[in-house]
């Protein structure tokens, strides 16, 4: 092997140390309850599965963040409001028409919304700093929350996708009492997997997908070879709207369609950052890590903290993901799989 190559691999390894550290910490956190005997193997697996499923649901929302960031460099705070809006629209329209039709109508609404955002927000704000665009999406977010609830109402609505609700118990032979698995979550996980597959195919194999990647790579170069930036933005916001719709359907059928859906986005935000804002697989892996980490932190670490410091119960899932990501940001701002960019601060 040539020395240059060797040096390269050492540099690469040195660059990866935060990842190694994170993995080691997470593994230690995972194994601690088992090792200390705080959990039986069955309970341990149950918590783990619950975390994975929650993580998949976070990934669904995080995907929307990643799509928009990749193509337009906008950090879309409004993704959660879009989830809420799409779910509300579907739930209320499904009262008057078949569900499939309502979903299609909601999709059309989201496409219209994407067009409006491009016209009214992105176009006037082109070339502004990332922070300005973030504040603009904050504005979109509360506008959409107000608008959605003003039009569709602010009660709790139901979306019935016909998913099996009753949990099943597997592995009774392996562990005492078996492991409880929610079938609904299994369906949600497969939906997320299918969505990721579809999006990757769309990005890799179609002409539009290539154009999207080109814009993500270099705005100016893409424009100079004739890719219409404005249309690309409409498309990518529409795709994000579609992802929001899917997330809204899955979350809505699980929790009911209500205002708190838009808060889900706040949970998905650290997921997108941990995975890397420019990486679609990153959103999935980040979601799984945060989902599992959060569940474990809540079940085991939270109790321990409450016990040691005499707290009013644990409840640390409120900030655990954020603090985990904050620590990670400090050593590796581009996330697990994001593109490395050098930025002076």
């Amino acid at each position: 092997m040539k020395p240059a190559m060797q040096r390269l691999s050492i540099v690469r390894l040195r660059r990866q140390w935060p990842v190694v550290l994170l993995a080691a910490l997470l593994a230690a956190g995972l194994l601690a309850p088992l090792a200390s005997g705080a959990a039986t193997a069955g309970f341990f697996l149950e918590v783990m599965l619950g975390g994975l499923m929650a993580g998949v649901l976070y990934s669904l929302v995080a995907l929307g963040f990643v799509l928009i960031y990749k193509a337009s460099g906008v950090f879309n705070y409004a993704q959660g409001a879009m989830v809420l809006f799409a779910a509300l629209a579907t739930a209320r329209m499904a009262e008057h028409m078949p569900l499939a039709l309502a979903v299609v109508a909601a999709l059309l609404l989201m496409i219209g919304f994407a067009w409006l955002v491009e016209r009214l927000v992105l176009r006037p704000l082109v070339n502004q700093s990332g922070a300005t665009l973030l504040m603009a999406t904050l504005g979109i977010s509360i506008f959409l929350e107000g608008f959605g609830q003003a039009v569709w109402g602010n009660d709790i609505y139901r979306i019935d996708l016909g998913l099996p609700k009753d949990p099943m118990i597997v592995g009774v032979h392996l562990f005492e009492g078996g492991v409880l698995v929610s079938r609904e979550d299994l369906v949600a996980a497969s939906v997320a997997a299918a969505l990721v597959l579809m999006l990757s195919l769309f990005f890799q194999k179609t002409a539009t997908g290539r154009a999207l990647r080109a814009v993500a790579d270099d705005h100016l170069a893409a424009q100079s070879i004739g890719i219409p930036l404005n249309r690309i933005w409409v498309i990518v916001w529409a795709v994000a709207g579609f992802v929001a719709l899917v997330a809204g359907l899955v979350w809505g059928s699980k929790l009911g369609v209500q205002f708190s859906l838009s808060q889900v986005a706040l949970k998905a935000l650290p997921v997108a950052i941990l995975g890397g804002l420019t990486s679609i697989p990153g959103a999935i892996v980040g979601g799984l890590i945060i989902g599992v980490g959060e569940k474990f932190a809540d079940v085991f670490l939270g109790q321990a903290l409450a016990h040691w410091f005499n707290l009013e119960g644990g409840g640390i899932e409120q900030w655990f993901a954020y603090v985990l990501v904050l620590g990670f940001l400090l050593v590796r701002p581009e996330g697990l799989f994001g593109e490395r960019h050098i930025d002076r601060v």
Partner: protein
Amino acid sequence: MLYRENGQFKTSYSADQQLLPIAQDRWLMIALVASSFIAVPLVASDYTLRALIIPFLILAIAAIGLNILVGYCGQISLGSAGLMGVGAYVAFNLTLRVPQLNFLLVLLLSGAGAALVGIAFGTPSLRIKGLYLAVATLAAQFFLDWAFVRVRWFTADSPSGSVSTNPIELLGWTLDRPVDKYLLVLGLVCLLTLAAKNLTRSHIGRAWMATRDMDVAAEIIGVRPLTAKLTAFAVSSFYAGVAGALWGFVHLGSWEPAAFGLVMSLNVLFMIIIGGLGSIIGSFFGAAFIVVLPVLLNRLPAAVGIDLSTAMRSHLESMIFGGLIVLFLAIEPLGLARLWAIGKQKLRVWPFPH
């Protein structure tokens, strides 16, 4: 006609660099301050003071604080309400545990406490910026939210996490009428505004603005990014802490941890976007706007004869806020303060266009 500066010659550096170089501005400011101290207490009803003027003044302090960080130093923060909460809980614990302490000292200490927490949560700004920093401050907000609910010591073991305060006493002066509270808050607002205005004109403020405009260039001309950023975080958090303590003690009286949640953070951020980033007077405009709009929405439809439900009003409110934020960012990124400056300039050169 009246707003002319003909004949006002500056003959010394200090005259040239004074806060309000135009004589009419000075007179106007003196009249404004005098009328707020003398006329407003005589004229305003208790309701106006309690529901409009006091919240406006307190939120203006918070907005000035956030404006120092976001508008002057360019470090975006979504955690200002958390720091207001720190101020409120420090004040609560101090009055509870050290009751003989003067309330002004309590305010000072709650500002200092918030400043310490702000510095701690501001350190990531030395490594990351832009939206990543927004996430870091969001982490601070959520962590503080959680701490206020869960750590029993903060709330003095109150079972629901809500705390209530006694009327403020200041050197034998019990502040139980809205007028008394108004005068206290007004005095503090005047002091803090003057301090902020002068800070932003000093070398510290110039270091903040240099960091905001281009951090690399600022570093090259000798601005230390570490001190610039951390002083911005400290000063901003100090203002937030004082505002939070006042919000809890003077405006709310008793509060639950949710009073200092993310919604409040976003509201303060909206104030400075609508009012004007990087402008002290803009903070006042923004605070006034955010306080008055809900009241208007309460009154106006009823006056016209349309009956709106409470929920509908709050939805309309967020639609208007959201729309305005996008509008301001797109059309007038410097907010109401910029419109004010344009108006003044037009008046100066009237009837000529330039």
